[in-house]
């Protein structure tokens, strides 16, 4: 019987399956960061358990780390304690650990692929909802809670109920100036923030195949924003080329052998998904969120919607709340909204392709004097490469700050925080109330759109940027 890629990976990782019960699924890669793991290690110690497969467990610090000068000690003592505790846990339990000064440090979802830990066909988990990023390589990757982190540490398995499958078919090609970020924002807008709940999404179609691995990671990254725990893309030559020669990819003849296996992963012709959704890409534009969840999104050429345009009473009240929180009036053209801050970074958009695209926009220009702008590379390796290409110079010449790698202002656990009322054009993934700082107002956009807004001081249609 023809099978979907999800089914192939699911079935090859079943340790135990009994009718009427959730399955016991083997986990090939467990990524760990400082925020959601301390309680798990603590419980492990209390019950005198070891980490079953330290060789499949990789840790780094990203959520809490300052992005300014790292030769100075960490000022926030609670953050410092959490960061140091991961170092101790990694050492005590024998895990691979990229510490704050490691040349390989970075956002866990950036360094997984970068180091070649992420591979097609693997089951990958992390105590972080954006683990869906790794699905871009044809892996089954999803976020878990701290109890489940402990479960995987202790058993290398997870108790899982089989999710349903959804194909999101991106038809046509993305027009110039329209990016992977716009594509996924559009998908979330169409499905709604709970449209993918209970599903694993496989993204297919011409527009997905045309995307680079970076772009596919951006798309899969935000699958969780429509409720889907995992998003996947079938691995192809682009994925294989990306992975070849990475430190933890299979090496030599082992790589060719692995590619042979990886080529068997894509969904068989005729395999059935539980739901199929088609997205038209040819008519797509850049998108900007106006509200307080990623589904509250419109075209850059649109206006802030009215409360009355929502169908249910609950949604109208949510829209009203969102408009009040965001300090916006219905009917305001998106391009008339002024901004105070630009954040280019996060596991959604902090890879080389993102930084190159943003740099191309700001090159030779100056930021608006009323805007503060920071560029936070996803990893130390991205930072180093960007500097080798001179991108840092382009940004700093334009008045954008160039920072060290980490999650930074995506969730503002470190010192990079919006002040109440400040409005940010952000390349991150969540525009929830207070996400980037209590009272802060977030608009999610592509790196190009964020960069252009930083120059103009308000949103602009990057398609007509020169």
């Amino acid at each position, binding site marked *: 019987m023809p099978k979907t890629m999800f089914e192939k990976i699911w079935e090859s990782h079943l340790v135990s399956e009994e009718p009427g019960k959730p399955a016991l699924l083997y986990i090939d890669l467990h990524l760990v960061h400082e925020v959601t793991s301390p309680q798990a290690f603590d419980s492990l110690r209390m019950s005198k358990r070891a980490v079953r497969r330290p060789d499949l467990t990789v840790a780094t610090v990203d959520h809490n780390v300052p992005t300014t000068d790292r030769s100075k000690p960490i000022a926030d003592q609670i953050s410092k304690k959490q960061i140091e505790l991961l170092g101790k846990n990694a050492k005590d339990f024998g895990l691979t650990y990229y510490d704050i000064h490691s040349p390989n440090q970075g956002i866990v979802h950036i360094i997984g692929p970068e180091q070649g830990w992420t591979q097609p066909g693997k089951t990958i988990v992390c105590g972080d909802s954006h683990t869906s990023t790794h699905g871009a390589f044809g892996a089954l990757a999803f976020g878990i809670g701290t109890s489940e982190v402990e479960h995987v540490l202790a058993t290398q398995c997870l108790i899982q109920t089989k999710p349903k499958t959804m194909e999101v078919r991106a038809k046509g090609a993305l027009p110039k100036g329209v990016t992977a970020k716009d594509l996924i924002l559009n998908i979330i807008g169409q499905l709604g923030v709970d449209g993918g709940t209970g599903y694993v999404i496989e993204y297919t179609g011409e527009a997905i195949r045309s995307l680079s691995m970076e772009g596919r990671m951006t798309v899969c990254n935000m699958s969780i924003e429509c409720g889907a725990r995992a998003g996947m893309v079938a691995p192809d030559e682009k994925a294989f080329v990306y992975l070849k020669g990475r430190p933890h990819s299979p090496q030599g003849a082992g790589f060719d052998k692995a590619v042979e296996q990886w080529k068997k992963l894509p969904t068989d012709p005729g395999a059935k998904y539980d739901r199929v959704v088609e997205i038209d890409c040819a008519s797509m534009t850049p998108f900007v969120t106006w509200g307080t969840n990623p589904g509250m999104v419109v075209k850059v050429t649109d206006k802030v919607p009215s409360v009355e345009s929502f169908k249910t009473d609950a949604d109208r009240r949510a829209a009203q709340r969102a408009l009040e929180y965001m300090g916006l009036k219905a009917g305001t053209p998106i391009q008339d909204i002024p901004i105070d801050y630009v954040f280019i970074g996060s596991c959604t958009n902090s890879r080389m392709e993102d930084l190159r695209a943003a740099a191309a926009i700001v090159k030779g220009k100056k930021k608006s004097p009323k805007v503060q702008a920071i560029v936070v590379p996803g990893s130390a390796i991205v930072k180093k490469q960007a500097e080798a290409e001179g991108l840092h110079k382009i940004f700093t010449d334009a008045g954008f700050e160039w920072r060290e790698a980490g999650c930074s202002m995506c969730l503002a656990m470190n010192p990079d925080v919006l002040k109440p009322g400040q409005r940010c054009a952000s390349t991150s993934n*969540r525009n929830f109330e207070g996400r980037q700082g209590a009272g802060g107002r977030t608009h999610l956009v592509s790196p190009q759109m964020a960069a252009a807004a930083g120059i103009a001081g308000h949103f602009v249609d990057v398609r007509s940027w020169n």
Partner: protein
Amino acid sequence: MQPFVKHTGLVAALDRVNVDTDQIIPKQFLKRVERTGFGEFLFFDWRYLPDGKPSPQFELNDPAYKGATILVAGRNFGCGSSREHAPWALNQYGFLAIICSSYADIFRNNCYQNGMVPVILPEETVAQIMANAKKKNGYRITVDLGKKQVYDNQSLKASFDIEEFRRHCLMNGLDDIGLTLKNEDKISIYEKKRWPELSGKK
């Protein structure tokens, strides 16, 4: 883990949709390395004014909801981040069960891990419970996991579905790790098949 069999308690209404885990427990409290002490920070940014006083606007600050143990809320509750600090905060504040028409997947799983019951009922039934709780006259309901029913002492009686495995674990206070470790032999067999070269090392 504390078993949950049947519970009767005061219902607090949070009539908002898509309540995300960033609201349930804002990020500044995720720096704590303990599993406890999150209740006082539940819904922090909604619950407190910038000067630290309780916000009179926020639903749960209503004295009528003091001592509530059941929360009824709008659809897609717990969306966003995977932080288990969200169910910890709800639980440590005093909630033992939540009633919604839908939950985000990771949040729902995290509830199970902490002995808290995420009850799913049809929109109309949730609306009815919400309306009753919003009258603020001490509306109480019973969540009966044994019968898979929610009922009050008036006319409400609704059945809900829950995976049999999860119901069994909740009612007996079983944690997943203990159960999985009973499958140790199966895990070892699986590993030997996948990584023959590792045999003997374990």
